[in-house]
């Protein structure tokens, strides 16, 4: 009888028991890793959130059952989870009472957690009871608490619900109920509430109303405009949180204002992506003048707001040597030029019908992103710069992994090469001997000879490759012409695309000769001096960094041409480590583990004020935008399709006429060049770089952000960088668990959204193809109608 009854109960409560068990495990995990200590504001909140999530699960699973079932299951779940926490607390208390060094085992469980969860005031709680060192016995008279089973009603041990980023909390409520019984009751209530609300929601089919509502939304012009204007609206929100000159901010964020602002800034970027993606081919029945007028007006207004900020707050980002505090005129001028360029581009593109929505979204989003940095302080700028550098790295790796499908785990090598190239060309770090006496420059950064040599090399490389490329092109044209003459239908190419040795030698001689001639002319005419002695080491470093990383990309590419999948991953991983170890061990050349110090910013040395940090952010934003733009173009090209085909099936791609060697090396080189740009900017941001900055972790992080964002998707990579780099930076407290969160996110992504947060959409080229085909052959249109 009793057994039957028990069976009946466990059947009826199965959902609740399993949910309670999992909740309990998660709660224990959270308590043991010490989340309540380091995140005290979010601690109880996160514990209750876990319970609520499982309550929702119960409600969902049992939505066909009655209210009683749901309620009892939820209560059981809360109870079971509470009992598991209670067991842990009892263990902690017992061990404490026995004099075991509990701290050693539960290092992260704070006194505060124990106080709140057990109901014993902190003053009475002894992490380790006092023991007489001579006798090894407990000191008499000092109370040793062993009883964790309490229900208290006071301020001190009451459960506090606090919510806020750091420091002060936005929301603070002391429930005045404490102790384990109190916690268990709270867990049960939370889970019951979540379960019942979910159950009622599903039972009443609230989703039906929502569907109706969203159905109404899709055709609604207000809703569409709201989506298109999202970045602008959020910029408005950001603007309200910022004091304007003497006027106080309208919207005051109490706790963690800087972090909250950063989050809004991230949201602006995300909404910009969403707005661009959701734009439809819709002109709203507007004429060309109206269309261009609206776009120009919104861009103009945003640029004006930006200029207001520049003059009102001296938020400048250009600082010539003559104006170390930043030039407002030049900054404003730059904004105006960028705005004008956007308007002109829109004017050209809007001539075609159906482009209004997308063009509007692009123009306003870019304008908002253009003026947003002016409102950031130094800390926020720093975080944004880091995110921007990671976007560059992500987009570069996206070409190698996302487009070409070559798993590269040593990607950090190219990043490091870019950074070290710039460092080597610009740092003027002194070396000291054992008596602390300077013995000379370690890096001849500002040494005329080094910069000259770099300039020489750059020019020679450019000229020589241009000559060789031109020569090859010419040679192929001649060959193709001959082949054409010989055959009726089409030239038989592919037989001998390589020039003979004689032609090659001739070309090389020609290239070397020309570059020597150019160099001599430049040297003789003092044009060279004018070109390079005035140029900032940053520009030279940028060009040299990109070239060096690109060449390294090809050098890595050649030995791994035949490798695929896991083998490729291992070899590239080794390559990344080799480069780091080289930097670590070639002391005389790279400074070894002490790194390179005193790398100049891309600015005159004496700049101060906002310009000193904003300039770098603008460079990073410009760089990321450029890289994103180039990536998008590459994807929709012959090269991009070749990569995509190669990713899909290497052998078949080759039999379609794709030269695998060429395609792979191009992918490696372009990806490496993008990383090189990132590296140069990273060195300029850090100002001191060490081999330790270029560990395997960086490669893994970049790969994670590409996977989480969506392989092969540009908005995905941007989102991935924000989620994995930006948000942990904002939630400093969570940073300790960054790897944990990475892992959890990766696992969750693979299960829930295997294609990433913002996956690349399937390209829909047929409409354009049909349009072009009809334009070329107007007769076809009628044929189709007749069919």
């Amino acid at each position, binding site marked *: 009888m009793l057994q039957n009854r028990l069976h009946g109960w466990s059947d009826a409560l199965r959902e609740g028991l399993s949910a309670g068990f999992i909740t309990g495990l998660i709660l224990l995990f959270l308590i043991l890793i010490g989340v309540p200590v380091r995140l005290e504001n979010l601690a109880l909140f996160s514990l209750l959130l876990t319970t609520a999530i499982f309550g929702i699960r119960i409600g969902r699973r049992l939505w066909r059952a009655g209210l009683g079932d749901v309620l009892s299951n939820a209560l059981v779940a809360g109870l079971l989870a509470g009992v598991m926490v209670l067991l842990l607390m009892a263990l902690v208390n017992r061990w404490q009472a026995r004099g075991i060094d509990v701290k050693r085992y539960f290092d992260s469980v704070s006194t505060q957690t124990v106080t709140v969860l057990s109901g014993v005031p902190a003053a009475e709680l002894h992490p380790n009871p006092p023991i007489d060192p001579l006798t090894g016995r407990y000191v008499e008279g000092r109370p040793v608490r062993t009883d964790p089973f309490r229900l208290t009603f006071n301020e001190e041990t009451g459960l506090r619900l606090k919510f806020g980023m750091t420091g002060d909390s936005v929301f603070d409520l002391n429930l005045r109920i404490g102790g384990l019984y109190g916690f268990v009751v709270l867990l049960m209530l939370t889970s019951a509430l979540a379960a019942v609300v979910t159950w009622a929601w599903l039972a009443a089919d609230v989703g039906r109303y929502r569907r109706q509502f969203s159905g109404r939304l899709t055709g609604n012009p207000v809703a569409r405009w709201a989506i298109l204007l999202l970045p602008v609206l959020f910029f408005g929100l950001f603007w309200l949180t910022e004091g304007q000159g003497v006027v106080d901010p309208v919207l005051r964020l109490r706790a963690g204002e800087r972090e909250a602002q950063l989050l809004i800034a991230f949201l602006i970027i995300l909404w910009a992506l969403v707005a661009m993606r959701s734009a439809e081919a819709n002109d709203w029945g507007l004429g060309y003048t109206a269309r261009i007028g609206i776009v120009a007006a919104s861009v103009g207004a945003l640029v004006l707001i930006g200029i207001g900020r520049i003059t009102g707050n001296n938020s400048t980002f250009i600082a010539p040597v003559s104006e170390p505090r930043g030039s407002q005129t030049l900054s404003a001028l730059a904004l105006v030029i960028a705005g004008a360029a956007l308007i002109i581009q829109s004017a050209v593109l809007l001539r075609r019908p159906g482009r209004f929505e997308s063009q509007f979204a692009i123009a306003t989003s870019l304008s908002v992103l253009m003026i947003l940095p002016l409102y950031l302080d130094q800390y926020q700028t720093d975080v944004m710069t880091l995110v921007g550098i990671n976007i560059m790295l992500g987009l570069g790796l996206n070409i190698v992994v996302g487009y070409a499908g070559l798993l590269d785990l040593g990607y950090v090598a190219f990043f490091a090469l870019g950074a070290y190239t710039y460092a080597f060309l610009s740092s003027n770090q002194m070396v000291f001997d054992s008596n602390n006496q300077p013995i000379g420059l370690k890096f001849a950064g500002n040494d005329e000879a080094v910069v000259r040599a770099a300039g020489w090399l750059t020019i020679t490389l450019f000229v020589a490759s241009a000559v060789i490329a031109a020569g090859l092109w010419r040679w192929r044209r001649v060959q193709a012409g001959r082949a054409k003459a010989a055959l009726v239908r089409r030239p038989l*190419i*592919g037989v001998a695309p390589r020039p003979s040795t004689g032609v090659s030698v001739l070309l090389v001689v020609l290239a070397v000769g020309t570059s020597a001639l150019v160099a001599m002319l430049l040297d003789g005419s003092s044009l060279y001096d004018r070109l390079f002695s005035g140029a900032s080491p940053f520009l030279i470093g940028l060009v040299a960094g990109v070239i060096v990383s690109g060449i390294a990309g090809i050098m890595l590419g050649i030995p791994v041409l035949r490798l695929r999948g896991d083998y490729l991953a291992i070899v590239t991983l080794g390559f990344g480590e080799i480069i780091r170890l080289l930097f670590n061990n070639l002391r005389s050349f790279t400074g070894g583990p002490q790194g390179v110090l005193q790398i100049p910013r891309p600015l005159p040395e004496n700049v101060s004020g906002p310009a000193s940090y904003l300039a770098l952010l603008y460079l990073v934003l410009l760089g990321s935008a450029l890289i994103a733009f180039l990536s998008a173009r590459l994807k929709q090209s012959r090269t991009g399709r070749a990569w995509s085909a190669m990713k899909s099936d290497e052998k078949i791609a080759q*039999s379609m*006429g*794709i030269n695998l060697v060429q395609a792979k090396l191009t992918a490696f080189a372009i990806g490496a060049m993008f990383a090189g740009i990132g590296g140069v900017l990273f060195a300029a941001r850090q100002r001191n770089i060490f081999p330790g900055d270029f560990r395997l972790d960086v490669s893994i992080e970049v790969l994670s952000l590409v996977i989480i964002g969506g392989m092969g998707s540009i908005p995905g990579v941007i989102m991935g960088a924000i989620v994995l780099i930006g948000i942990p930076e904002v939630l400093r407290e969570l940073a300790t668990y960054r790897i944990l969160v990475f892992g959890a996110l990766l696992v969750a992504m693979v299960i829930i959204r295997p294609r990433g947060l913002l996956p690349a959409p399937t390209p829909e080229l047929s409409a354009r193809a049909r349009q072009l085909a009809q334009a070329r052959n107007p007769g076809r249109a009628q044929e189709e109608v007749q069919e």
Partner: protein
Amino acid sequence: MNDHKSAVPVLESRRLTKRFGGLIAVGDLDLVVWPNQIASVIGPNGAGKTTFFNCISGFYTPDEGELLFYGVPIHGLRPDQISAMGIARTYQNIHLFAGMTALENVLVGIHSNLRATPVGAMLRMPLTQEEEEAALVKAYELLEFVDLAQEADTLATNLAYGNQRRLEIARALASDPYLLLLDEPTAGMNPHETEAMMQFIRRLRDERDLTILLIEHDMKVVMSISDQVTVLDYGRKISEGTPEQVQNDPLVIEAYLGAPADELVSGFLGGE
């Protein structure tokens, strides 16, 4: 057929041999394909037909012998070079680029006829742009030719089986080949679809001025559309000629039916 062309065969195989260890997959194969013909290669399973195709398309390097394409030696070249010369093929088991749309698949097929470089693509040079538009139109027209224009934006994996076959042919045609190798184009098709495919292959030859070399198991197809049939068995050519000649060749009958009764059983066990 143009007379001046018929002097040079499209494809000529001279004593072609391919071994895998001790196994001779293709041995001393002599084969000549003349322009605008439909030539078939038949034979029991394991006769070396697909190996022969893989040698032509460059996946395998022949151990001995020569392969001449319009008199130009092609053995030892890479698959991409061979494809660029004008030999396209389809596969026995369909191999499409699964993650790409039908239109993109055909665009990949045009690859070797385009000249755009990554730099040109990044800067969107006028020539690149022009070329890209021409390629798009061509790809779309090819899809229309194989009746797949409606599915242009569908991912290749999501296409129905018959459509995948046709898309594979469209992709092969995209490079404007002289010679099209079809590896069992009617595999897995019902009689109605097979009939349609035969019509389609004839149309290809006549409208697009192609030479076609095909592997086929369906004897009805082979006998009705081929101008010339070559029979392979254990890697060696055992018969060659018009369909009628081949049909009546006792060696062929033996290869397919294993005529002598006592060898029938061993042929059965070893053959498949």
